[in-house]
């Protein structure tokens, strides 16, 4: 099923590339673009062939792990220093995954704990204030949250650096320290969704007869939630967590720009503006794969925690 989705997505990616306005040759050659140089350029890159042919070539190469060569790096003077797409994407992807994991390590446990405790003490002052707090942070655009954090944590009280420019030589502890602010920003942005979903899923179950039964048998409220309600709530929670983790990988370009973090989102935006089609396609494919894989994982968790789903009625 995942594979079918992926191939459909690859067609969508490819055809939307075709719909992009403008021409790569002209975007690269700039002031030096004459009709002949643009035509020669298109020929060199194989852009003069039909779309179906190019799709076939691209997808068969991609299946063998070859994402092609970047278009950019060929400038007006004819210097060819274009790099393999894979060399461009891999270090950026590693950075993005690092940031996503740091953010997830903070956000997921935090969201679960907040979700469970608010379900436990629902309608208390604690519940209300957690809800208000998380909903406030999710309501602001992420760049605003980012600048507020910079203002407080690096301008007024210089605790963390406002530049998160890591490179491959950066030590792990240094890397962790530098990514603190972007990770915190992302945490604030995603925690509300997961926490509210956890809370809702658990509260939803608390009305079921088997929970009543558990209560009558003398279980404490904590036991009821952890032992009886939570196992049945995993499926919806996992779906939401998967959705947010995918967002951490594919949707953080704004945060990357604000903190100058060399992630894959920035690479893709730069590639779009320079019409660097192979890089855009590779990034889009990776993003699609992330979504599909994480959703698959969420489905598997749902099934594992609820064996009934394996036996359709």
């Amino acid at each position, binding site marked *: 099923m995942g594979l079918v989705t992926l191939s459909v997505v690859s067609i969508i990616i490819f055809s939307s590339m075709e719909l992009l306005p403008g*021409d790569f040759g002209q975007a690269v050659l700039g002031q030096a673009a004459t009709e002949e140089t643009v035509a020669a350029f298109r020929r060199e890159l194989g852009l003069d062939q039909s779309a179906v042919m190019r799709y076939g070539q691209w997808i068969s190469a991609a299946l063998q792990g070859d994402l092609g060569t*970047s278009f*950019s790096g060929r400038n007006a003077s004819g210097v060819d*220093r274009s790099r393999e797409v894979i060399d461009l994407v891999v270090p950026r992807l590693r950075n993005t995954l690092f940031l996503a994991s740091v953010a997830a390590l903070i956000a997921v446990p935090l969201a679960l704990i907040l979700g469970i405790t608010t379900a436990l003490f629902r309608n208390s002052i604690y519940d209300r204030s957690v809800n208000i707090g998380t909903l406030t942070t999710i309501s602001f655009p992420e760049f605003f949250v980012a600048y507020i954090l910079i203002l407080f944590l690096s*301008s007024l009280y210089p605790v963390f650096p*406002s530049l998160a*420019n890591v490179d491959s030589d950066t030590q792990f502890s240094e890397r962790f320290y530098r990514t603190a602010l972007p990770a915190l920003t992302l945490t604030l942005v995603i925690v509300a969704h997961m926490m509210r979903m956890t809370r809702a899923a658990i509260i939803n179950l608390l009305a079921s007869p088997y929970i009543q039964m558990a209560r009558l048998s003398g279980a404490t409220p904590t036991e009821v939630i952890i032992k009886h309600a939570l196992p049945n709530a995993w499926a919806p929670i996992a779906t939401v967590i998967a959705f947010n983790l995918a967002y951490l990988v594919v949707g953080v370009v704004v945060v990357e*720009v604000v903190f100058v973090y060399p992630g894959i989102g920035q690479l893709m935006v730069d590639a779009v503006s320079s019409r660097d089609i192979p890089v855009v396609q590779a990034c889009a494919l990776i993003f699609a794969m992330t979504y599909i894989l994480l959703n698959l994982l969420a489905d598997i968790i749902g099934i594992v925690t609820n064996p009934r789903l394996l036996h359709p009625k």
Partner: protein
Amino acid sequence: MKDKFINLQTHKLMVGSIDRRKFMMSVLATGLTVPAALSLAKRAEAATPKSGGLFRMGIAHGSTTDTLDSATSENHFTLVNGYTFGNNLTEVNNDGQLIGELAESYESSDGQTWVFNLRQGVEFHNGKTMTSEDVLASFNHHMGEDSTSAAKGLLTAVKSIKADGKNKVVFELDSPNADFPFIVSDYHISIRPAGDMASGIGTGGYIVQSFEPGVKSVLKRNPNYWKEGRGHFDEVELISIIDPTARQTALMNGDIDAMDRVDLKTINLFKRNPNVNIMDITGTAHYTFPMRLNVDPFGDYDLRMALKHSIKRQELVDKVLLGYGSIGNDHPISTANRYHNSDMQQREFDADKAAFHYKKSGHSGKIQLSASDAAFAGAVDAAQLIANSASEAGIDIEVVREPKDGYWSNVWNNDAKGWCACYWGGRPTEDWMFSAAYTNDTEWNDTSWKGTDGSKRFNQLVKEARAELNDDKRRELYYECQTLISDDGGSIVPLFNSYVSANSNAIAMEENVAANWDSDGAKCVERWWLA
């Protein structure tokens, strides 16, 4: 006499040949009061370079395709990085003068044969001593059929290069060129060890530690740097920060020490930060509005004159560049160039003159001006302002807003459009600028200024000036060239935009800052120090 003496003493204090006490004694003897003498001493001491520290610079460029091979250098990041770890035969110093760098001296008797005497005992970062062999290899890297260097065009006039012993290189050109020593200071033509043009080994003040294209470059001081009084920082990080807000935030928070390209929209708020110094340097970059002489009605001299007189230049500087620029005089030579014609009268808005020439041209009806922000930020606004001021002289200009995509192929330098907005990065020498956009043999002659008497005279003068070694005569020739472009040419050059950069208070530099490139001639890393 007194000033001269004080200057001498100040200099002695700066270089450390006398101490503060001796300085005070000697300048007080000239009749200066104690507070005045103290402040002089303080100024002199602040101007004394100190060694050490980490310098981090945020640069608005940098791309994943950057390399350490100077032949591919094309943006400000690779430019600054290249000048930091490498040297050229010559350099433009911070006073704007051309001086020898790896060449101790250079000479030519006819402008056609140039002899460069190399500095002896200079070592590359890998320990190899620099000789004529390396210079030959470095130049051949940019020449020949197969070369893909961006500097290939600069060196097409070189017929042959020969080594004369280990420390002398002789260039034979196919026609005389007085600017040749200037050309070899170009950032592409960095001297690298023979056989290794790409790995970032140079003779510069800093050694490359790591380089990640589009992200950053880390360097450390070269303990054996041959150049005296340069290269003060211990460690250097050049960081590519393309987003202007992020760059400015980083400077305000002390995450970087210097940056290029301040965002003019927020500069007034940015300036209020007590840690931030703004630097505003007039360079060679300029905005133009080229009229094509081969397209009606711009072939008419009077019509061109009418339009040239109907522009409020200072208003454009104030509104489009928010004051960070200077007005132009319809020719591309800036005050940062060596032979800027300062005698020529500045052309101002003059409704009467404009109306007079317009009437004489006999033209009537709308004149179309094509503009898009692809030409430069604010080009459409600038065109509107021109249309407004021209209407005061009774000239009807219709601003046509063009799409950004394909602007450089469909609008600029295209006979379909007679008049449009354009941007030029400027060139370090007059000859180079003229040959790029104004002589009759260049493809980029965007005004199609070819057949007129003025243009014929201009082309002849440019050739003459190229071969002229006498400085005064050259100046005369270039002055006339500028007058010709300004009067007869098709380009309206209303403004030069400044390099606006910023640095923290911790950074100190000499009084004169180079204007040939942004960031102190792109050599800030070796010229600046931590105060």
